């Protein structure tokens, strides 16, 4: 346990200051106040962006309405997907094939596209077998960059609307997210990763003769670069099927630690940005305290149970050995456990098999995926957090006898409708998915435990799709037409439904004037608010999902006893 505590403390002491700086950086670079004095860095980036804006005929200062913003983002997403679709469909005809010669089926292509453009990166395909070098190393990163940038843009637009009373320009936000956040940070990280031993080459594979005199090929690629965007963009798609468990993707304990830092930085930074824009850093700190304490609680509990090991096996062997199943020894129990617990919170990348963890991790995972605000996916998680702040403020306002306000702006019918859509989208999609799957493809075994676990897997699969997370319990043999199509639809609706609701929510707030602070305003940057926020966030998830959490992972946990 000492290792776990040290790991978590070190993780936070490195992540928080870096996130603080990046949060400040984002708050300055994405506040499109006209007439502000630009710093040297901003001028430098402007020089890079000007030609892009000119070529694409974009006026970055033009403020968009909610409809314009959403349609711009949505349509640009669709155009990129269209290009990607052609490249994937004709990947056998196109150059840079590498060692792969595989015709992708239509449902799988749709799943890959839906999964990547929605920043979910759920992987039903096996990159090494199914994708050519062009697809794997060019198309995938393209989608990963674009979807992550769209996510950041959505989050920033919604927040800008609620805090700064303007929505901004979708194209400018997406391009700036790439040039100012994703590109530079990915570049720095990939250099560090390459330095720490990840291969970074365009050579498809290394051939060698083994000791038994057999010729073997080891697949390589631009892994360090790929890894950077996978983690920074909260994507989670890797160029290898085994994701961050692969020795090339995650060679040492140190890289494992750094990968975790990378996953957490941007979501935490965005919450700092909220504070900078509100000119009230205390607000950020209160929210972060709540979110991080949930995170730390999950980290420590999962580590505790993994270190304790599997009670059945320990009983038989009369030893107490930790639960090593599905974990990489070089990453250790703690490194794997914390990564495993973080998977469902932020990114879909994993370094161990979640399916072989103590089922508690599934309970936490399903809770996180349903809640979506404990950091959550790039940009969107921020809006879900704001959404829970909105609910908290709504109830506090009612209890105090005032029209509720969020950051000084009145919460009225329109905002409640939009935030209800955000809240209902996830259960609607997940439950419909569960119902259809259980009716169409029930598990055929006779074992009660298998039934329960199958249900957990289905639940997790849909929850991870609907939360744009992308992690999975695997074991579903999900590369078939039903799974590919159903999840492609779920991910698509979940992402763009939420995106529309978020942008319109931001726009709705942007059109309101902020009310002045008075003695009777309840301040949202107090500890009391933090507690109510935690309660609201917890209760609104638990009330809807508790029966299914009980029927799935809870039964599994109780069976372990």
């Amino acid at each position, binding site marked *: 346990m000492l290792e776990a505590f040290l790991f978590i403390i070190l993780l936070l002491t490195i992540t928080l200051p870096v996130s603080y700086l990046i949060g400040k950086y984002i708050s300055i670079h994405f506040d499109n106040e006209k007439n502000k004095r630009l710093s040297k860095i901003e001028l430098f980036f402007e020089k890079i962006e000007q030609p892009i804006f000119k070529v694409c005929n974009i006026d970055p200062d033009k403020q968009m309405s909610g409809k314009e913003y959403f349609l711009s983002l949505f349509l640009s997403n669709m155009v990129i997907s269209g290009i990607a679709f052609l490249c994937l469909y004709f990947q056998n005809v196109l150059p840079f094939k590498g060692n792969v010669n595989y015709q992708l089926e239509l449902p799988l292509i749709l799943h890959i596209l839906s999964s990547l453009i929605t920043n979910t990166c759920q992987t039903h395909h096996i990159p090494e077998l199914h994708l050519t070098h062009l697809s794997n190393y060019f198309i995938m990163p393209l989608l990963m960059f674009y979807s992550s940038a769209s996510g950041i843009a959505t989050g920033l637009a919604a927040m800008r609307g609620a805090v700064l009373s303007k929505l901004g320009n979708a194209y400018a936000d997406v391009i700036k997210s790439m040039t100012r956040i994703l590109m530079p940070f990915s570049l720095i990280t990939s250099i560090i990763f390459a330095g720490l031993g990840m291969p970074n080459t365009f050579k498809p594979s290394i051939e060698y003769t083994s000791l038994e005199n057999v010729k073997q090929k080891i697949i390589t690629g631009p892994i360090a670069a790929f890894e950077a965007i996978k983690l920074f963009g909260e994507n989670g798609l890797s160029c290898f099927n085994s994701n961050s468990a692969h020795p090339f993707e995650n060679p040492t304990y140190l890289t494992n630690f750094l990968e975790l830092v990378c996953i957490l930085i941007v979501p935490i930074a965005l919450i700092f940005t909220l504070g900078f824009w509100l000119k009230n850093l205390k607000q950020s700190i209160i929210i972060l305290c709540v979110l991080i304490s949930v995170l730390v609680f999950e980290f420590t509990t999962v580590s505790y149970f993994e270190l304790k090991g599997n009670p059945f096996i320990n009983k038989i062997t009369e030893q107490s050995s930790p639960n090593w199943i599905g974990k990489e020894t070089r990453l250790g129990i703690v490194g794997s456990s914390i990564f495993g617990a973080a998977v469902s919170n932020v990114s879909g990348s994993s370094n161990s098999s979640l399916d072989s963890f103590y089922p508690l991790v599934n309970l936490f995972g399903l809770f996180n995926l349903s809640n979506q605000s404990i950091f959550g996916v790039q940009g969107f998680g921020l809006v879900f957090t704001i959404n829970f702040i909105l609910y908290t403020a709504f109830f506090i306002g009612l209890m105090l*006898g005032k029209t509720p306000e969020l950051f000084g702006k009145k919460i009225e019918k329109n905002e409640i409708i939009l935030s209800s859509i955000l809240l209902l989208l996830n259960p609607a999609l997940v439950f419909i998915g569960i119902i259809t799957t*259980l009716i169409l493809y029930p598990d055929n075994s006779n074992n009660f435990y298998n039934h329960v676990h199958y249900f957990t897997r289905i639940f997790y699969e849909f929850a991870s799709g609907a939360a744009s997370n992308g992690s999975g319990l695997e074991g579903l043999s999900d590369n078939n037409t039903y799974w590919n199509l159903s999840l492609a639809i779920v991910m698509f609706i979940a992402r763009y439904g939420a995106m529309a609701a978020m942008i319109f929510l931001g726009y709705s707030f942007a059109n309101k004037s902020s009310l002045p602070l*008075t*003695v009777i305003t*309840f301040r949202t940057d107090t500890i009391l608010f933090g507690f109510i926020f935690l309660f609201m966030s917890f*209760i609104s998830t638990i009330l*809807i999902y508790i*029966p299914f959490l009980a*029927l799935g992972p809870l039964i599994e946990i*109780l069976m372990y006893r």
Partner: protein
Amino acid sequence: MALITEQKKGIFKIDFSSIVQKSLIDSIKLLNPFAVCKNPILFVIECCLILMIILSIKPNIFGETALTKEINIAISLILLLTILFSNLAESLARNYTKAQADSLRIVHGDIEVKRVLENGLIEYVFTSQLNKNDIIKVQEGDFIPIDGEVIEGVASVDESAITGESSTVLKEPGTDISSSVTGGTRILTDWLLIKITSEQGKTYLDQMISIAEDVERHKTPNEISLNTLLIASTISFLLVVITIPVVMNYLSIKVETTFLIALLICLIPTTIGGLITPIRISGFDRINKLNILAMSEKSLEIAGDLNMLYLDKTGTITFGNRMATEFIPLGTHSLNDVAKAAYICSYYDQTPEGKSIIALARRYGIELDIKEIKGIPHEFTAHTRMSGIDLENGDILRKGASDAIKKYVLNKGGKVWQNTDQLVENIAIQGGTPLLISKNNEVIGLIHLKDIVKASIKDRFKELRNLGIKTIMCTGDNNLTAKVITREAGIDEYIAQAKPQDKIALIRDNQSKGMMVAMIGDGTNDAPALAQADIGLAMNTGTVAAKEASNLIDLDSNPTKIIDIIKIGRQLLATRGALTTFSITNDISKYIAILPSIFTLKELNILNIMHLQSSTSAVLSALTFNAIIIPLMTPIALNGISVKDQEPGVILLRNIVIFGLGGLILPFIGIKAIDFVLGRLL
């Protein structure tokens, strides 16, 4: 059924027992599915009720069940009671308000009135046949049928039916304040010709009654957003209840349809869903009890949000007129001389200022015989700006504006004492108006005229500050006067020399900054500002134009009632919020009570925290609790929770502890207790 009984002529009392009777009948009438579908929560309960009735007749329609018909019938009855209880709460609130309105309406009902035709003849018509701009004649003993404006005649009117005050009011044409009459009041003496100013059915009382009666059209903004949230949560729980049987079926665990219906009923926010309308209606009822007519349903909620209050000075903060407070002698003249001169000067002056001068002189002990005051009075004109009297004994007395008197005396070659200017200025600095008195060709003294701030107003403004509201006085007076009054009345800010258009511009400017602005006024010149403000509170003594522009009318013409309005507005919202919190925290406990009955798995035994006697007993207890909590909470909904002006954090914490924590614990005790009884019966 008459909800009110006439005790004396014209005085009605609300009859509670008939209200309860009528409410009981109404609540059964409200079971009509078309009436229920306006409230989504009750609609869901009613759908479940229909399902349960089907299950009571044919228990096996959704598959084999272990439950008997009797249990299904019991559950149907509990559901029926749940709906009836919420209907009853609503009917009670509505009928009570209606009764109050009725007592006003009886006197305001369809009576015969005398319409004056263009040729001067009089015809008898019914009130309902009157149109705007018709002229009617009302005589001693008649009710004034409809709001209007006096165009001829002078009469004393009993407005007690509306204001509750017994003193009569004099109505006469031509003045802002006393020329407007309200429907439902009665003429005690003489007669009036009244021009109808409002359309039939749009009188203030009618507006108020329609807000009380027509529930659906008058939802308030916050109620709409809360309703939206309640619908969203109902949808999510519907999804949950639809998914559970699929998963259970797949896991081959038997699940009773009845239990699922029970779970749904327990999860959807029935308590707040049933009480949301009564809460609003009783809020309006409380405001009507204060003798304030609410013209729009939004006004009450907005009142809770006010940040700023603009007040008209005259008639609102101060008494309508300036009063003399001090005589100051000049040079060799004694105070007595000055007071006497002032008395004589003002004897024929009928203005309130003149009367106040005489009153002050009497307080100085001056009492003059009428015989001493013989002469030719000179009235005040805008040109001379002075008034006075030329006495028979040759003395010429004048009082007036300081510069006018000075000029007058100097022109006559008279004498102005050296310190005059200094004293004049002193009075002006104190916010007063100096008048000079001259005798023949000499200025002999000063009169200090002053605005008198209404008593107790200062404390009330302090209270406003505690409520987070900034008070701003608008006046046409000069800066100095405004400043003094502001200080005396404890007002935060003032705007001097304000023209009507300045007031609108200011209000608009503040609204664009997100402020919620209230305006209190009574004159026609206030009307545009009253219409522009989020809340316009007009005094009943005010002009028709002012009242029409406002959304609240105070029948007692007491501006400080705004504080009560704000408190009632906040109370309305807070009650709704508290009961919503209660309703939601209840869910957790009800989940804990019901889930073990549905998940009959030995692995999930750990969830069975409450250890109720049996599954059936658990479901019945939870449902029963769910039903009886509605009538238990109805008094809170109708009376409102207490709202004190404390720190917001303190209020919040208190409400969370009472309604949040209470909502969590109460069901545990309640359900366990009901189960204790039921378990024995089953």
